[in-house]
C-alpha cells in the first residue's frame, strides 16, 4: 500500500466527513419473528455513507450483512429507526414507492449474477431500463462495451463464462445511472482472473464517482474499499477511512 502522510489522511477523512451522505442510518433495527421469539438481525445501526464513497460490509455468517443489504437495497424496511437514501426517507415508503425508488437509486450486483436465461446479454441489461423507464439498445450496448463485453452482447447467459455473466450484471446495475451500486459478494463465484477483472471495473466506476456498497468475505476485495463496516451479531462497527488517501493520490 502506498504510504501517506498523517496530514493527507486527516484531509481525506475530513473530505468524507463533509461529503453529502447518500445513505444515512439512525438507530435502524430489523427484527424477525421466529418460533423461538423475536430475532433482532440488525441492532440499532447508525452510520452514514458519503456520495462517491466505496464501503465494504464485512462480518461472519449470521452477523446481519444480508439484512443490512436488504435494507440498503430497499428490498426490506426497518422495524425501527430512520433510513435515508439520497435524501429520501425510505423507512416511511410504501411497497410501490420502494419499487420505484429501487429502480431509480439502486444498482444491484449479485454473487450468483441472476441473469434471465432466455434473454441475451444486451436484453438483460435492457431489462433494468425496461423496469426503470424506456429501453435503449445503444445505451445498453455501450454499457456492455464498457465492461468489455461489446462482442458478446447477443449471447445468452448460458453462452457466457461466470466472469462475463458478472460483467453483464454490472452493466445492468449501472444502466440507469443509480447513485448507489450495491454489490453482494460480487466476486464470490469467480476465479482469480475474473475477480481481477471485476475488481478493476469496480475501481474504475468508483473513480468515475459511483458510490459502492459491497458485501464481501474476501479480504482482498474489502481492501479495495475506502472504509469497512463490520457487523457482528447485528451490531455495526464502522472502521475509519483506510485507503481514501491512496485513491485520491491515484
Amino acid at each position, binding site marked *: 500500500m502506498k504510504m501517506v502522510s498523517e496530514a493527507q489522511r486527516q484531509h481525506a477523512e475530513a473530505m468524507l466527513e463533509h*461529503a*453529502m451522505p447518500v445513505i444515512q442510518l439512525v438507530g435502524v433495527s430489523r427484527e424477525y419473528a421466529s418460533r423461538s421469539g423475536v430475532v433482532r438481525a440488525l441492532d440499532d445501526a447508525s452510520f452514514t455513507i458519503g456520495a*462517491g464513497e466505496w464501503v465494504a460490509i464485512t462480518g461472519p455468517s449470521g452477523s446481519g450483512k444480508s439484512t443490512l443489504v436488504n435494507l440498503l437495497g430497499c428490498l426490506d424496511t426497518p422495524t425501527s429507526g430512520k433510513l435515508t437514501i439520497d435524501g429520501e426517507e425510505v423507512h416511511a415508503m410504501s411497497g410501490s414507492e420502494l419499487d420505484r425508488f429501487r429502480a431509480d437509486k439502486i444498482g*444491484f450486483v449479485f454473487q450468483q449474477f441472476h441473469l434471465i436465461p432466455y434473454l441475451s446479454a444486451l436484453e438483460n441489461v435492457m431489462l433494468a431500463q*425496461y423496469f426503470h423507464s424506456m429501453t435503449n*439498445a445503444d445505451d445498453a450496448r455501450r454499457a456492455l462495451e464498457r465492461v468489455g463485453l461489446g462482442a458478446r452482447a447477443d449471447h445468452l447467459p448460458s453462452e457466457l463464462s461466470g466472469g462475463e455473466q458478472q460483467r453483464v450484471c454490472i*452493466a445492468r446495475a449501472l444502466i440507469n*445511472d443509480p447513485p448507489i451500486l450495491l454489490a453482494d459478494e460480487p466476486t464470490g463465484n469467480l476465479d482469480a482472473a475474473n475477480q481481477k477483472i471485476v475488481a478493476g471495473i469496480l475501481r474504475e466506476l468508483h473513480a468515475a464517482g459511483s458510490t459502492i456498497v459491497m458485501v464481501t468475505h474476501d479480504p482482498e476485495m474489502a481492501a479495495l474499499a475506502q472504509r469497512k463496516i463490520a457487523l457482528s451479531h447485528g451490531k455495526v462497527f464502522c472502521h475509519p477511512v483506510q485507503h481514501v488517501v491512496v485513491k485520491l493520490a491515484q
Partner: protein
Amino acid sequence: MTAASVARRKPMSENPDMGHPSGFSGDKKSNGAVSLPRMLVRSLKFRRARSLSALAALTVSAMVATALLTLYADLDAKLHREFRSFGANVVATASGAVALDEGMLRQVQGVVGADVTVAPIAYAVATTDRGTSVVVAGVDFAAMQKLDSWWKVDAWPAGTNDALLGQRAAGFIANEREVTLSYAGKAVTLHGAGRLSTGGDEDSRIYVPMAAFTAWTGVQPTVLEMQVPGGAERVNAAIAALQRAMPGLHVEPVRALVAGESRIVDRTHSLMYGAMLLIALTVAISVLATLSASVLERRRDFALMKALGASQGQLIGHFLLEALVIAAAGGVLGYVLGSGVAWAIGEWNFGTATLPRVSLLPVVLALNLAIAAAAALFPARVLRGLQPAALLKGE
C-alpha cells in the same frame, strides 16, 4: 461532497466533462428491443415443455367445450328428429257423430300446422280365409311410412290393392299372395306386398290402403295419429289448439313418448353441463399445477425483476398474461378441433353433420381465459409473497 460524486449525479446534458460511469449516455429514447410481448414469447419458448403442457390442457378444455356446446345447440332438434321416428305422439279419436273425413283431415292439418304428420286410421275386425278373426286397419301408407319409420317392413305396399301383413297376422292366412278377407259378409282379395314386424300389437294386424278399406267395409277413419315435432311444449300447444278448434275430437298425447322425450332431452342437457363442469375443473387443476410449477421454477427471475424495480402489479400482470396467451392459443386450437369432433359425433350418432358455430368462439375463449385466470390465482399469491432478498441470495 466530493467533486467526483457531484459530477456523477448530474445528468449527462449538464455535465459534458464527466463521462457516464458505465460509458453510455443518459439520453432515453426507446428502440424497443425488450418489450413485454418479446419477453413473453422468449419465456414461453424457453420453457417449451411447461408451455406445451399448459397449452395441451387448455386446448382439450376448449375442444370439449366447443364440441359439447356445438352439439348442445343442435341437440334439441336432433333429439326431436330422433323421437319423431318413434311414431305418433298425439292421438285424436272421433267422438259421437263426428266423422274423420277428408274435410276434417284438412281442418286438423290447418290447426296443427303443415309440419305435423297426420295419419288417419280406420279399424275393422275381419275373418281370414282360415276363419280366424283379424284386425284390419285402413291407412294412408305414405303417412304411415313417415309416421312409423321405425317399423321393420320388408316391402311397403305400393299398389291400390296391396296389403301389409303383420308378422303374426300372416300366420292366420293361407296364401299371402292372395289374401282373402271377409267383413260383414263382404269378401275382398288383396295382394300381400310385405310383412311388418314391430314386436307390438301391429304384428297382429293387416294394413290395407284406406280407399280399398272404405270401399270394402264402408267404415270411416276413427283415429288420427299425429307426429308433432318440437318437444313437449309444442305437443301440448297442438293439443290445446285442436281441443279449442274441434271440440268433437278427443285429443290426447301419447304420454309415455312425450314425457320420455322431455326427460331424455333434459337429462342429456344436464349430462352435458356436468361433463363440461367436470372437464373445466380437471383442466383448471392441471393448469394450476403447471403454472404453480412454472412460478416456483422462476421465482428467482421474478425476484430479480422485483429487485430491478418491477412492481407487484407488473410481476403478476406478466405472469397472468403468459397464462392468458396460452389460454387464448389453446382456445382457438380447441375451437377448431372441437368443431371437428362435434361434426364427427353428429355424423356418427345422428346421421347429420353438425356445422361449426362461429358464435361459440368468443364463449369458448372466455371460458378458457376464465379457467387460466382462476388457475393463475394461486401462483399469483406465491408472487405476492416473494422475498427477493432471500431468493437472490440463493436461500
